[in-house]
């Protein structure tokens, strides 16, 4: 798979409100950041998967953005094992370990993964 194919597949998956990720067929490692090579075993035998969109807050920090709004910048660990930077949309403080689900938002015409806390 060429990198350009991976990126365009990611974009269309996100547009369809799903979260894509990469899985190495050789070593089963899953990862999110778009490479056409497995960063673990360096195999090029990769497949693009779709996540169920459920995960856990691995770490989170609250800060004020340029518009002085509170925002929760986070690392999310998806149930499929990979992690990514994202933002947890919440008015309340978010704790590490909180279960979250995917919420795709459109920014400047492109779709990106955000997360919201799951109601227990």
């Amino acid at each position, binding site marked *: 798979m060429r990198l350009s194919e991976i*990126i365009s597949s*990611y974009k269309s998956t996100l547009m369809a409100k799903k979260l894509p990720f990469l899985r190495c067929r050789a070593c089963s490692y899953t*990862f*999110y*950041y*778009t*490479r056409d090579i497995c*960063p673990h075993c360096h195999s090029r035998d990769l497949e693009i998967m779709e996540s169920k969109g459920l995960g856990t807050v*691995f*770490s*989170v*920090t*609250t*800060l004020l*953005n*340029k518009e002085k709004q509170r*925002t929760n*910048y*986070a*690392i*999310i660990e998806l149930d499929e094992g*990979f*992690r*990514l*930077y*994202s*933002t947890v949309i919440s008015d309340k403080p978010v704790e*590490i*370990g909180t279960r979250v689900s995917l919420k795709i938002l459109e*920014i400047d015409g492109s779709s*990106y993964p955000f997360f919201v806390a799951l109601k227990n």
Partner: protein
Amino acid sequence: MIAGFASKVHRKFDGSAFELMAETVDQALEMAGIIPGEIDGLVTTFLPGVFDGNTYLHFFTNQVRQYLGLRARYIDMLDFGGASALSMIYRAQKAISAGEASSVICIIGGKASEVKALGTTVDSMDKVYDHISITPFDWIYRIYDSLNPVSDYALVAARHAKLYGTDDTVRAKLAVQQRFNGKGNDKAMYRDDLTVKDVLASPVISSPLHLLEIVYPVDGFHVFVVSSKHTSLRDLEIKAYGEAHWAEMPPELPDITITPAKDSSRVAAFDLERVDAFELYDSFTTTVLLQLEDIGLVQKGQVAKFIEEHDLRYTGDIPLNTGGGSLNCGQPAYMSGGVILEEALLQLNDMAKGHQVKGVNNVFINGIGGWSRSHSVSLVLGERN
């Protein structure tokens, strides 16, 4: 080995970066008793926008040498952010040992004020300029609001707190002890009394990190002259050295609370019992705590207990960041490596008036650098055997 060194640091320098660099070089050469014509090597580093406000300087080492009038037979350009300074003197020494140069000038610095004027930091230059990237994956993650690099270290501090109960007080205690050391250092910008309460009362910039746990970027240069020539300075050598360069995006790290200092210090493999002072990279309080664990002074997760049980002041049992570190001296050009290396040299040469540790023979210096803690350099300097 180190024939001379100098620093010139300003909160904001109104002149040009080239001018400030040349002044610092002059001062270092004067200490070394070496004339510019004797310099035949240059090692330096460059960060976008930081040197003089230009996002890029075409053939940077040419520009440095053109300004200084320096012909060379050895040049190296390092790219490890804050850890570069430590590697500079190692590589300079290696070139001298190999007969490739006799006197090498190592230059690190620039003007952080040029970047601050844009309302950004060096690790978020992509937000104000097109055609600057931070990683090969910017398209998919740089849309989130963050305060890179503060927020990235905040994520680490939050995770460390969650896993090991390292609360805000632990980090504040470190800041307070570093301030104590800074109070005796005439190079420190911040020398007022500081309490744990003060640190915790300062604004939270990116939770859990407070303003007083974060370095203040400034303008300035550090210059180190490595030479085969003997000078009035103590005859030092590199007793141990290790580098580690990691490849993961931070979310991909198996454990974000571990830095490559774990690997670089293992390569250096120096008996920490023989170390008289530690100078550990202090971009944030958290950075120091992580290194205390990663270099092996204490087990991962136990740093709160360590801070409780030891006195980290320059008069204490484990002197740490003995001049106050860059948290109190400022961080020239977004890189603290020059600050901690200079402090090590002051200590080893008994030149640290007001913050001198007694009987310093070996100093352990650790630099962390590059976005996302991707580089670490561990270095022990001591008197030549």
